């Protein structure tokens, strides 16, 4: 179980290194194949590991493996260790499986880009980083993976570095993640002080002994990191901008894997979160608020990728709600199905964009149903899964979460329940708004101009991978049907053995499941209907009160707020420093030294008269004085 896990971790790294070192000596196609191959190898290894785990007793499915002791400072010993248990296995399979499909897709998508090799190296690097994060056996390795993932995200968002907007978006993503990382690391320091170790086993074992304040602070710090990485309110503004990256990047990083790292984190650290129930509640609340916010803002987006990005934000909100109330199994389940249908949506959108030579504005699209029939089917499948229509995967996972929030009870539970249902309605509206605008009606003049489908809708690499994802989106829900059979939740149960019998804190009853599903599906259908009414006949936009429309289009002014709070003061201070300190003091001191030396030299140079006799006189006089001094001092 452990050896394949190491192979899984290191294969993408080997791929990235190979592409980097071979550079121009390999063809662009080969770089793509190398990258895909390495991720595929990782998937195979993850599969092996998974099968090995299945062959074991349910209680025996956890294994740690330490390569060597990395850091040893006083009593603190930290090793380069990985933890292979059901939770990490699930993540490994999702990351490498969906990752391999997406990297394969990119072979076709990035075909025309001259810097393809760099792209594939970065993608392999990203997969490696994400696996590091997921497989980490202690907090420090987790931090390493956390940071590397942020780096890979920065590199890939800013891939088209000639575009200032891309570079700015990359910086924004990195900086916001850095804010989260700071909170993260503070939590680590606190843990080191309070528990003396950074190993998962050690910390979780002592989670109950932490005082309330400490536990809350630690959990808050961890939540900060999770919120930044998963683009939840308040650290969410980077995700829409991150759509500057190529579409496969958006699919892999900002839909399927990296942004779900926050969810994984809360699930992994659940003993710490359970020791600080207020923070867990906060997690759920943030998830619900983000869910609603993102759903509302998605209603007015005009860029096809941005709609899907806000949808991601919203769905991760659902996952946060799940882990916030303790339904870890359901949260992870939704993570998996979401990876399938969100990647499907992004990649299908990528086919549309590719066919339209880079057009991303939905208002320029229309009538693609007959022109790109296969893509239309793929996107429809993805949209239905997203909206939670049975029997597609999204239905099972999303409704499980909403049902769990009903089961959690209490004021918070009901609020979350209502929010989840409202979210289902909004999801239906904005998803099908996209479908109807892009695929319905008549082809717009822009489409007629740009569409080129001489070689079919897209290269085989693109259509085949999307098809696979389509299938997964359909059948992916089969691993867990609420109330009837739940092998998925059972598999995840024994994470970090605790005295409880089941991992999930809440288990919805069958009635609750059915009621919830009925309501959710109903609202979803209602949403689809509303979208049909408003956009089905080819109408583009809807009249709405100007203020509301304005607020939503500006994403509730979060960007402006952060701009005013952080950017302007910081840049003002930086400018002040430059004119007051950098110029006169630092630059000035350096040039001051040089001009001082020169001036001194000029002054002393006056003594160089060139007359031999003056020099000799100086020597003689000097000797006389010195002799006098020596003689008198003795």
């Amino acid at each position, binding site marked *: 179980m452990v050896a394949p896990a190491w192979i899984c971790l290191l294969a993408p790294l080997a791929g990235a290194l190979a592409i980097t070192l071979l550079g121009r000596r390999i063809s662009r196609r080969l770089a793509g194949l190398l990258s895909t191959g390495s991720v595929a190898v990782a998937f195979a290894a993850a599969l092996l590991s998974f099968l090995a785990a299945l062959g074991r007793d349910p209680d025996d499915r956890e294994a740690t493996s330490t390569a060597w002791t990395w850091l040893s400072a006083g009593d603190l010993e930290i090793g380069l260790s990985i933890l292979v248990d059901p939770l990490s296995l699930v993540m490994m399979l999702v990351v490498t499986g969906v990752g391999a499909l997406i990297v394969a897709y990119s072979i076709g998508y990035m075909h025309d880009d001259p810097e393809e090799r760099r792209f594939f190296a970065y993608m392999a690097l990203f997969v490696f980083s994400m696996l590091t994060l997921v497989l980490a056996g202690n907090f420090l390795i987790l931090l390493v993976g956390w940071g590397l993932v942020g780096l890979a995200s920065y590199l890939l968002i800013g891939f088209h570095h000639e575009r200032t907007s891309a570079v700015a978006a990359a910086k924004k993503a990195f900086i916001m993640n850095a804010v989260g990382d700071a909170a993260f690391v503070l939590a680590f320091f606190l843990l080191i002080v309070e528990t003396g170790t950074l190993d998962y086993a050690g910390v979780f074992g002592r989670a109950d002994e932490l005082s309330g304040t400490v536990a809350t602070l630690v959990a808050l710090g961890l939540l900060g990191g999770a919120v930044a990485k998963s683009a939840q309110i308040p650290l969410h503004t980077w995700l829409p901008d991150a759509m500057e990256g190529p579409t496969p990047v958006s699919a892999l990083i900002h839909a399927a894997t990296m942004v779900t790292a926050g969810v994984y984190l809360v699930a992994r650290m659940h003993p710490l979160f359970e020791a600080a129930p207020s923070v867990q509640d906060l997690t759920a609340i943030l998830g619900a608020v983000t869910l609603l916010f993102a759903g509302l803002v998605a209603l007015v987006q005009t860029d096809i990728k941005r709609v899907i990005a806000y949808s991601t934000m919203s769905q991760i909100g659902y996952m946060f709600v799940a882990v916030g109330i303790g339904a870890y199994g359901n949260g992870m389940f939704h993570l998996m199905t979401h990876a399938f249908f969100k990647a499907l949506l992004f990649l299908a959108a990528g086919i549309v964009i590719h066919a339209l030579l880079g057009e991303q504005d939905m208002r320029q699209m229309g009538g693609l149903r007959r022109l790109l029939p296969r893509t239309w089917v793929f996107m429809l499948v993805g949209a239905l899964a997203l909206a939670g229509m049975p029997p597609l995967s999204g239905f099972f996972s999303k409704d499980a979460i909403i049902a769990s929030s009903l089961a959690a009870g209490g004021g918070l539970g009901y609020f979350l329940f209502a929010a989840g249902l409202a979210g289902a309605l909004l999801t239906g509206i904005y998803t099908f708004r996209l479908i109807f605008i892009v695929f319905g009606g008549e082809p717009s003049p822009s489409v007629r101009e740009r569409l080129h489908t001489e070689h079919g809708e897209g290269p085989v690499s693109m259509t085949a991978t999307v098809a696979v994802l389509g299938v997964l989106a359909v059948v992916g829900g089969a691993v867990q049907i609420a109330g009837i059979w739940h092998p998925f939740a059972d598999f995840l149960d024994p994470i970090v053995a605790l005295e409880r019998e089941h991992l999930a804190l809440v288990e919805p009853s069958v009635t609750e499941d059915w009621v919830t599903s009925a309501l959710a599906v109903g609202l979803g259908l209602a949403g689809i209907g509303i979208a049909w009414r408003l956009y089905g006949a080819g109408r583009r936009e809807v009249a709405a009160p100007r203020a509301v429309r304005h607020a939503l289009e500006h994403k509730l002014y979060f960007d402006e707020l952060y701009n005013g709070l952080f950017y302007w003061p910081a840049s003002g201070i930086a400018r002040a420093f430059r004119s007051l300190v950098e110029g006169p003091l630092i630059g000035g001191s350096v040039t001051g030294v040089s001009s001082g030396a020169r001036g001194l030299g000029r002054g002393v140079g006056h003594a160089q008269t060139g007359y031999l*006799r*003056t020099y000799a*006189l100086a020597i*003689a*006089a000097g000797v*006389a004085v010195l002799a*006098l001094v020596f*003689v008198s001092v*003795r």
Partner: protein
Amino acid sequence: MANFVVWVVWLAAGLACLGSGVAVVSFTNPFFSALALIANLGSLAVLYLLLAAEFVAAAQVLVYAGAVMVMFLFVIAYLGGQADAPWAGGPTWQRWAAVIAAGALLLEIVMVIGFKAGGRLSDEADITEAFGSPAQLGRLFLTDHLLAFEITSFVLLIAAIGGVILGAHSRRADQVKEVEALQRAQEAARV
């Protein structure tokens, strides 16, 4: 009796020494200055003999008076009229400052000898016959002061090389001049 002879010899040599020293500094003609220096060196050799430094006295005469001064005389003969330059010149303050400096040095030496040293200078060591002999000096050179010996020979080598370099005809410059002259002649012939 012997003491008296020694005193007389000392006085003669000492006065010759001082006199020739002043002469070196004051003659206008460098040739006469050089001759005065030879006299100075000779009288110093006599004083060295009185101080039981036979080998050094011999070396002084052979090396200094014999080799170095001959070199000086060669150069003075070669330069001839060019070497005549009048006394002093330069800023007046320099002249006075020079005198004061030299005087200060002298004064200090006198003070050190007279006052600081106290009566200790009168204590003289007893010496053997071998004192100052080539054997003793040779042994000292090759054992205690071997480094100084080797370095001194190195310095002499460097001086010799320096002399050769400084004195060498700059053949390249001469050749260039010859070529230029030839070219000018050819041009003139063509025209």
